[in-house]
């Protein structure tokens, strides 16, 4: 699936989160979006599945403008997209198995046997075989995140949006999630967008890295290009420096407020 974000602006009240952000993602590539906490990465992802609608600008997925789709068109599109929410967003009144199979149960006419197989298969892909009968409240934070990933995988999507898939899981699991993202990309040509703070994971999975800063995509290129970027903001972020333009503007802003 190809994604084309054209000049999207979004405000909440007076707070302008996205300010004419533009980004193009080719079919079958993995694009990593980096940026500081609270800069609007999750908001950007929600525009792609049409949970949020842009104040200005357009989002095209597969050539169709997302906010102009009717209900049937939107549902058809969403059945091709898997989204892993930052906090998991598991339905806590349903079991893990029902959560993972939710899309299939609601929309595809498939038999009980096949459903159970698909659910178990998805859970095994994230390393959580045999927990289908637990409730989400019985899981740890990292397990919830992986179940959420399994739920996204279960509908066999063409596009997967990962909102910080490796945050809050141990390094070994994080590495296996990275492997999973890579193998989906290599074997099934799934298009992926990965939001992450973890630069190691970003370099492992990315075909492209884009950086969101002050509501705009300020840099967009291959991992090598980003790594050798001379843009001061990008440089500070990927090297995790305490001093630099990002923190200076913050200091500046807070001085103005005082």
């Amino acid at each position, binding site marked *: 699936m190809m994604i084309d974000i054209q000049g999207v602006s979004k405000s909440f009240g007076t707070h302008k989160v996205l300010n004419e952000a533009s980004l193009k993602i080719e079919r079958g590539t993995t694009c990593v979006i980096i940026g500081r906490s609270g800069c609007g990465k999750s908001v950007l992802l*929600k525009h792609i*599945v*049409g*949970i949020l609608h842009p104040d200005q600008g357009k989002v095209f997925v597969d050539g169709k403008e997302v906010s102009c789709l009717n*209900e049937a068109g*939107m*549902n*058809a599109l*969403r*059945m091709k*997209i898997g*989204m892993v*929410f*930052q*906090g998991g*967003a*598991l*339905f*806590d*009144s349903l079991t893990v198995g029902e959560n993972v199979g*939710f*899309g299939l149960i*609601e*929309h595809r006419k498939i038999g009980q046997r096949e459903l159970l197989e698909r659910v178990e298969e998805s859970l095994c892909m994230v390393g959580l075989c045999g927990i289908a009968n637990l409730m989400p409240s019985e899981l740890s934070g990292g397990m919830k995140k992986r179940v959420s990933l399994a*739920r996204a995988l279960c*509908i066999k999507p063409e596009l997967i949006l990962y909102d910080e898939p490796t945050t809050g899981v141990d390094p070994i699991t994080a590495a296996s999630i990275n492997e999973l993202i890579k193998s989906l990309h290599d074997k099934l040509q799934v298009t992926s967008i990965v939001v992450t703070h973890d630069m190691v994971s970003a370099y492992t999975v990315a075909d492209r890295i884009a950086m969101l800063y002050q509501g705009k995509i300020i840099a967009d290129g291959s991992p090598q290009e980003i790594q050798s970027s001379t843009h001061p903001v990008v440089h500070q972020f990927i090297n995790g420096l305490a001093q630099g333009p990002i923190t200076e503007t913050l200091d500046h802003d807070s001085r103005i407020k005082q």
Partner: protein
Amino acid sequence: MKMPQQFFINIGQKVFYFLYFVGGMVNLASQTIYLTFMPPYKKDRIMEQAKKAGFDSLPIVSLVSLFIGFIFALQTAYFMQRMGSEIYIASLVALALVRELGPVITALVVAGRVGAAITAELGSMQVTEQIDALETLATNPIKYLVVPRFVALSLMLPLLTLYADIIGIFGSYLICVYKLGISSGMYIHVTFDALLYKDLFTGLLKTVFFGMIIAFVSCFEGFNVEGGAEGVGQATTRSVVTSFILIIMCDCFFTAIFYFLFP
């Protein structure tokens, strides 16, 4: 200097919130009613909600209506004994319970018990992005969450009310027969004599609307939660208070209409 300004800003905010509420409720109600009649129909989800709203409310409804029956019998007895016409306690209690007290008390109990639970549940789903997750799984949250609660509440409230009427009358019967010395056969006879079908009908018909009010208000407040756990708490309070007010207003409206329609 600042006071009058602040006053008008406050009024403005209240008016704005009110209009937002009315618009949102009308929107939610129309979408819900439309989606209720669109396939697919998920019966088991309605049954689950019907159990939560109806069956699980039986203990508290029994308790409250039994005591209302006791109280009402004793209070009317106070006056009727002075008039020397104790036997009319039966007819008064029957009419008041079936026409007014049964429906309203049941609706208020359900609003406090079920409405609050719905707001808290949907509200915490909202703050943990579960509602967003439903949408990304191509499921309409109104169809999935509101429709079953709407159908369950508007069907269960009349049934619960009917049950409350019976228990309330039974409560009053206990007082009259065992404390005031009215004969059992006489009490039953007078009760059935006083009640007309239209009393029962108008009493139960309005509870269908009370059920809808509870469903719409509690779901609307749940969907509109902002600001984490604290927001859920505030929304729950607001949901119960708003339901109470709307139920009483709606009751007044229906009582007036029925008064002129079925004199």
